[in-house]
């Protein structure tokens, strides 16, 4: 195998593929990145048998071939290469050595033959859905944090992506909270085509990786019975689909609140962040933050832990009944960190009923949590 390519292109492709490389595996081959050179391009692949990421870069290929190089070393080497161009050439001999030259740097490193590297699952170009990558990225960012990381409950560890001609929604529920993000198609744009009607349940883990390689342009999605393929121009990501029934979430989002507070997003977020400074590692999940309103314009945020207390008053507007309830502070802060809007409202149904956090304007986001009980 012998090729020459642009160092910058190579680095981006390596970093993408590396995200899907297995961390702990009994197959040493999976700890590396596959480089497959042929016909004017090099294909780079990382695959941990759950998620596969492939990037293709243009190259001057003088001899085709496929090799696997340790992912971490390849990324480190590529990052430090001195010249904008890099050449790869395998040497015939007793040992499997590939030479990497860039400027005056000349590496000779071990590789493994790429013949046995597992093939990414084939996904036929069916069940197509196209969304702008930026919108898809925003949908993921606003929901994936609410996925469960407990793999024993697949329906709760994935996000549901549902599209209708003029909108796309993504929903995550980990059992204790629900995050829903919505995107409306820009119907004023003549070039924008109505979305296909689709519903996919995608593992949270795949979405976390996808989120980091999304850029500009469109994302094309295709599904087979068991897999979903994201085509992102020069990169693609393949993942298993979650085979489980998603919860019927429509009924979970409450309506007809008893109280409604409106608050500046940054103000509330920084208050909660201050309260969480009192948490020690062992407190993380069990010291609640208390919300109590005083009159129509003050919310008292109160936190007690073994290390100390915080008592802070936040300016709000309250409509309806007074509020006094406690929350897992982590659940509140995670939502406040992903809301882009300047002001949010929180709708309450008493001290133990579900609470909805949403932007004051529009329906692009909704987040439901239940207060803690003692």
């Amino acid at each position, binding site marked *: 195998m012998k090729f020459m390519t642009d160092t910058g292109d190579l680095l981006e492709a390596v970093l993408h593929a590396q995200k899907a490389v297995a961390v702990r595996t009994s197959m040493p081959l999976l700890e590396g990145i596959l480089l497959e050179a042929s016909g004017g391009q090099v294909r780079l692949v990382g695959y941990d048998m759950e998620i596969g990421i492939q990037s293709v870069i243009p190259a001057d290929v003088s001899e085709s071939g496929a090799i696997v190089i340790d992912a971490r070393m390849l990324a480190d080497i590529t990052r430090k290469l001195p010249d904008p161009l890099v050449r790869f050439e395998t040497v015939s001999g007793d040992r499997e050595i590939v030479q990497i030259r860039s400027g005056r740097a000349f590496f000779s490193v071990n590789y493994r033959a790429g013949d046995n590297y597992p093939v990414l699952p084939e996904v036929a170009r069916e069940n197509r859905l196209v969304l702008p990558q930026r919108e898809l990225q925003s949908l993921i960012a606003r929901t994936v944090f609410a996925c469960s990381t407990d793999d*024993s409950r697949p329906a709760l560890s994935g996000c549901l992506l549902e599209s209708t001609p003029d909108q796309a929604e993504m929903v995550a529920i*980990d059992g*204790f*909270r629900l995050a829903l993000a919505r995107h409306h198609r820009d119907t004023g744009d003549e070039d924008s085509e109505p979305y296909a009607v689709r519903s996919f349940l995608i593992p949270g883990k795949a979405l976390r990786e996808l989120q980091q390689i999304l850029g500009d342009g469109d994302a094309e999605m295709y599904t087979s019975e068991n897999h979903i393929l994201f085509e992102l121009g020069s990169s693609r990501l393949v993942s298993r689909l979650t085979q489980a029934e998603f919860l019927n979430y429509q009924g979970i989002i409450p309506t007809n609140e008893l109280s409604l507070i409106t608050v500046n997003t940054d103000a509330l977020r920084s208050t909660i962040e201050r309260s969480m400074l009192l948490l020690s590692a062992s407190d993380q*999940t*069990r010291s609640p933050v208390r919300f109590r309103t005083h009159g129509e314009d003050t919310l008292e945020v109160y936190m*007690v832990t*073994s290390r100390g207390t915080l008592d802070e008053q936040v300016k709000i507007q309250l409509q309806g009944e007074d509020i006094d309830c406690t929350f*897992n502070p982590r659940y509140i802060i995670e939502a406040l960190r992903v809301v882009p809007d300047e002001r949010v409202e929180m709708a309450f149904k008493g001290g133990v009923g579900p609470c909805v956090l949403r932007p004051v304007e529009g329906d692009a986001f909704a987040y439901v949590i239940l207060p803690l009980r003692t």
Partner: protein
Amino acid sequence: MSRIQKLDQLTASRIAAGEVVERPASVIRELCDNALDAGATVIRVALEQGGIRSIRVQDDGRGMDAADARLAFEPHATSKITQIEDLDSLATMGFRGEALPAIAAVARVTLQTREQGAAGGFELRLTGGEIVAERELGMPEGTTVLVEDLFHEMPARFKFLRSDRAESQRALDAVTRLALARPDVSFRFDADGKTQLHTPGDNRLESVAYAVYGDAVAKRLQYFRYDDPDGIVQIEGLLGEPGLTRRSRSWETFVINRRPVQVPALLRAVEDAWQGRLMRGEFPFALLHLTLPPELIDVNVHPQKLELRFWNDSQVYRTVRSAVGGALEAMTYAGLERAAAETDAAESDTTAAAGTPPLSGSPRMAAEHGTPAPPELPDLPGTRSMPAGVRSADSEHAPLPQPSYAPAPGRPVQLRLHDVVAADEGAPADSPATEPPTLQARDRLLPRLLEARFRGVLFDTYLILEEGDDFFLVDQHAAHEKILYEQLLAAAAEEAEEGRGGIWIRQPCLAPLPLSLTAARRAVLDARLDLFEALGYAFAFGPDNEVSLSAVPAAAVAEPVASLLELLDDLEEEQPAPDTGTRHEERLLNFATHACKAAIKAHDHLHEQEVAALLEQLVSLAEPFQCPHGRPILIRGSLAELERRFRRSV
């Protein structure tokens, strides 16, 4: 012809005998009971062929005159009670008056007895329950019963006997239990001419334990005593060091008013007191003597008298648990002080504990020691008392009291006992008997740890400390785990005091989380529902055995289902315990796993300052010597021990 006939006397006796006399061991138990009731101080039991050929039980008790001897073989003849009310204040072993006739119905029996002060003895021979010969003879005071050819006329029963050896072992077990219950009586047990057990009868529990379990076990036992302030209930006994365990309960023996008993509440109390000190599947050594007013217990439940109903299981449970817990705490510190000097001995202990059952170890012991000690039967060789070298934790302790309860007229004993036990619950460790060793050992050891110089780390896991002529090894993971665990306990206590709810706050589920439970897990859940709800779980039960979670403890939101299943599996392997819903510690134990996860791992590298901080925190703990799972945190060794190993000194 009528199908129903009245049974003749012999057949009826044989059927009744089946209830009393199952095998040689039960014959021995009945005869020994009679001997004890006759005030014997020495009892000798001898078997041939597992007791099937012959059983001989000889005592130095009061004996009988000829008339009483004949009457003793009439059904329901007893000297011990005359009317049913007497059962309430019975302090003797046997009382049903059926032992001798029952035995006589199934074997050939020879009774020789000489009443105290009488000029001579008297012999009766019985076959098939009938007296076939009588004669006078010269003999020492006391009674000897010879039982031959047991069950030889009852093929059905005979068939159920095991091998000679197995029957002999059961018989030895029965005598052992009696010996453990009566340290004031010298028991000797011979099988086919070999002495297998011989206790000195010096009224010291340590001596009996030494005779029964051997030197290796006995020197790792600690005497303790607990008196409730009103003197109504009294507990004393021997407890094993925390490392002295077995995979079965055969080292747990309970004696109430000098009667060996099996009471599940006592097992639970003792094992719960050990909580946090035992690995799963291990059982401790405990020999407990409880002394209670006899009217508070009911022994007339089963002819074998093994089981016993208490006036209140749960109060007994609490008293015993707090008494044993206090004693254990005291021992842990004392044990650490001593551990270094006994490493070699401990090695041989381990072999004994792992390899040989405790009872079969006794013949060896019996052969090794032969110091004569009174009292004696004329034809018995010397018994041994405890050698001087064997440690006695509290050599000043009083001998066992004779239970001589007379119910005081009009005194509501039962109610008072209730009050005492309840009042005692709060401060189990404050028992005056256990406090001094606790403070002394702890105060001696802990400051030394702080003074110790840090010498390095073995295997990135064990911290090496040197102080004076001793060195200490500290398991860094276990130490940190215990620190976190005690912090968690303290936080929980504080939160509970402030009414904050703390650990036990619940996070309700947005939608019920369905659980698919195996039948075993489901059974545990049903049985311990109150415990799970106290922890913060809430469940919804649907048709067709469906269960779903509707709330989980706030601390468990990351893996709500997995954490629940783990708990269910833990509990499945555990013994059921009483009062589960209110047992605070039990909940906390379940969070010990949580502490474990946050703790420094075995192979994390620690800097010297971190080591110092770790030790400082460790020393300030309430119980710094064992991790929440019962493993030791600290091992002590000495220069002398190393010098011995390197042959620098002898």
